């Protein structure tokens, strides 16, 4: 039944869309208190992501929904297993989203400073925790023969997952910087470009080390094939080309290339996982795979028809949104 493979790819695409699009938002959120010294500058950087952040976040909701519908055992094991980490992600997303909407609605400096700090922490924490979560999917976590996670919160902290968190932070900073370089007001455009250029080399080093580490994990043995390596090479090359594009002030291309790097990185994780979705560190045979964690073929049929009709429509109107708001933030006029 090839539908399981299709849904594995679709879940991968939804998470990739989420990381590319929220990569701007989390990057901008992490840069927010540091790049912008005056209140007007801060409002400008929030305005750059204002019209799009909620549309971007839905990619996560869709990925979660797809996981539940197509791979209920993956959904159940991962969310109950990574319980505290996911609760922290949710709390971080909550304060961050509310912060973006509420921050500039009251002029009190204390109000604004509080939300600025919360937007920053929410963006940073989400980035760190998703990095750790995905790293642990590949590295393996203690899952017993009944698909029950028997570790705890501390199990998720290990060298590999912490390095992944660092790599995610750097990748999202390049992405956020590149986005601001296009969409910010005059000052944050300059700062965004600077950030993108300065973080690209550390991001590249972190990524290379992380890839080598991932490919040598015992759990990856036999799963690192030519395609996985190719994706990793593309991810690294895209960073080099992005730096070059930024040098030539091709800001649109810089952003596209950073996005390619994030996409290739995500795909390479999924490639190395395949056909597993969560690796058991206790016994490889207890790993969750697309075969033992999936829904039945009838449900997958229904879901496939729905997704194939709706996804093009979604891509259509989200493109329209980005096209409508393609202009940078004007220095004088601010929404947030």
């Amino acid at each position, binding site marked *: 039944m090839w539908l399981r493979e299709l849904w594995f790819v679709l879940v991968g695409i939804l998470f990739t869309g989420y990381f590319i699009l929220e990569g701007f938002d989390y990057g901008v959120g992490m840069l927010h208190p540091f790049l912008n010294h005056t209140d007007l500058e801060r409002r400008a950087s929030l305005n750059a992501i204002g019209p799009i952040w909620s549309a971007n976040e839905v990619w996560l909701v869709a990925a979660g929904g797809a996981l*539940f519908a197509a791979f209920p055992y993956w959904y159940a094991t991962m969310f109950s297993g990574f*319980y505290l980490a996911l609760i922290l992600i949710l709390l971080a997303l909550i304060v961050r989203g509310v912060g973006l*909407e*509420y921050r500039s609605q009251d002029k009190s400096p204390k109000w604004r400073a509080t939300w600025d700090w919360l937007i920053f922490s929410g963006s940073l924490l989400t980035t760190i925790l998703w990095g750790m979560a995905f790293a642990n999917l590949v590295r393996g976590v203690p899952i017993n023969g009944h*698909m029950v996670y028997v570790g705890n919160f501390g199990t998720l902290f290990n060298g590999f997952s912490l390095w992944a968190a660092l790599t995610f932070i750097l990748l999202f900073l390049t992405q956020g910087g590149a986005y601001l370089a296009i969409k910010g007001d005059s000052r944050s455009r300059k700062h965004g470009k600077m950030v993108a250029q300065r973080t690209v080399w550390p991001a590249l080093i972190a990524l290379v080390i992380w890839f080598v580490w991932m490919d040598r994990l015992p759990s990856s043995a036999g799963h690192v094939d030519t395609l996985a390596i190719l994706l990793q090479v593309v991810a690294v090359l895209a960073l080099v080309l992005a730096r070059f594009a930024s040098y030539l002030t091709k*800001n649109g291309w810089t952003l596209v290339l950073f996005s390619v790097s994030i996409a290739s990185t995500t795909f390479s994780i999924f490639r190395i996982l395949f056909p597993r979705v969560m690796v058991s560190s206790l016994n490889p045979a207890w790993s969750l795979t697309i075969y033992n964690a999936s829904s039945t073929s009838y449900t997958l049929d*229904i879901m496939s028809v*729905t997704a194939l009709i709706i996804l093009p429509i979604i891509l259509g109107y989200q493109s329209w949104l980005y096209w409508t708001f393609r*202009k940078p933030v004007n220095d004088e*006029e601010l929404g947030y």
Partner: protein
Amino acid sequence: MTQLGWAELQFGVTTVFHFFFVPVTIGLAFLIAIIETIYVRTKDKVYRDLAKFWGHLFLINFAVGVVTGLLQEFQFGLDWATYSKFVGDVFGAPLAVEALAAFFLESTFIGAWAFGWDRLSARAHAVTIWLVALGTSLSAFWILTANSWMQEPVGYVIRDGRAVMTSFGDILTNPQLWVEFPHTEIAAILTGSFFMLSISAYQIWRKKNVEAFSRSFKISTIVAAITSVLVIVIGDAQAAHLVKAQPMKLAAAEALWNTSSQHAPWSVVAIIDAKKHTDPFQIQIPEMLTILAYKRLSGAVEGINQVQAQMVHQYGPGDYIPPVAVTFYSFRTMIFAGTAMLALAYYALYLLKKNRFTQKTWFLKVLTWAIALPYLANSAGWIMTEVGRQPWVVYGLQLTEQGVSPTASVPALDIELSLLGFLVFYSAMAYAAVHLWKKAIAEGLDPDPELQHKPTESSDLFVGTGGVAR
């Protein structure tokens, strides 16, 4: 308290809180869409100002609704992993379709609406809020498709210890869905209209932009008058459906311990002794329960003890009685709040016809406080629906205690910590939302220009802008 108890408390607290923000989102989107359509038709700037004012309140609300909705989607996996494994094949599909077909729509177009006032034509801008309204309602539809399946499972078989979908069509034509969805949707529009009516009344009372707020007073009164009748009519159909679908919930909602006579009375209030299975005191309306349940003058309603005996026979030994007092009183809270809204809406309509509503200061004050009524009704209605289904998580298929996440993965301490986190964060958000609402309402139609959503212009996305200086 046990791990199960904490998980139930967490689900209840976070869901009731989420449901404080969702119905008003659905209703207000619809009303703003109407106001903006009038603006497009008449070109009368007052309607534009009104749409912006209500839109501002809407956005404050929407932000909390969206972010708390994230938890709603994930908590089935977090706290109810065994349930998720058991029902995922059936239950996951409507949730996924909700994300793809509805949530994407509303989240995309809300951004376009909030930031598009001067970027889009008036007509296109009005279309964006209609799409948001459509998205929020579709969202409710798919969520309630999932919930209705928990109330009345259809279109599945049990295979290898899990529920497996056999007919998506059956799930979409679930009789429970077609009473639950219209009732909830219309209740949401009623909520939006009472929100608008109460705040308009307050503005008129304190003589702030009276001319403009009289218009939103009028629109919301008309919508409230229509929906307050419909919500009761459909709510009645939903309650009557329980006779067939969930007799235990109906019996508990009436605190009816033993099967009634052919002419059952309806208890307005009662003191309930759940230990002794009696109601020591009650005030009753004769014949009323029979009429409500069957729409005719004779018919007995099954009692809790009798349904319990049948369920023991069908499902084996166990206690199948939900918390009776909670079900009874949440049901009545909903009914009384709904009736009060009906009365207020029609008195407002009467004053509107007589053109005297701006002078009735006492009534304007009552309406202002009446903003609590839809919230009370919504929360109570939801509690009645969910608590009344206990001890089942999926009616007749899985007990709630069998659905909770394994303690090895999710110990009670984890749930306690996360509940503490949610309580702190949710309280802070509610505080911030109320603070901003009060501020926006105090400003009326003349807010601080610096805080307005304004357009942004400059160069193109994929063109090298030649550096950053302009």
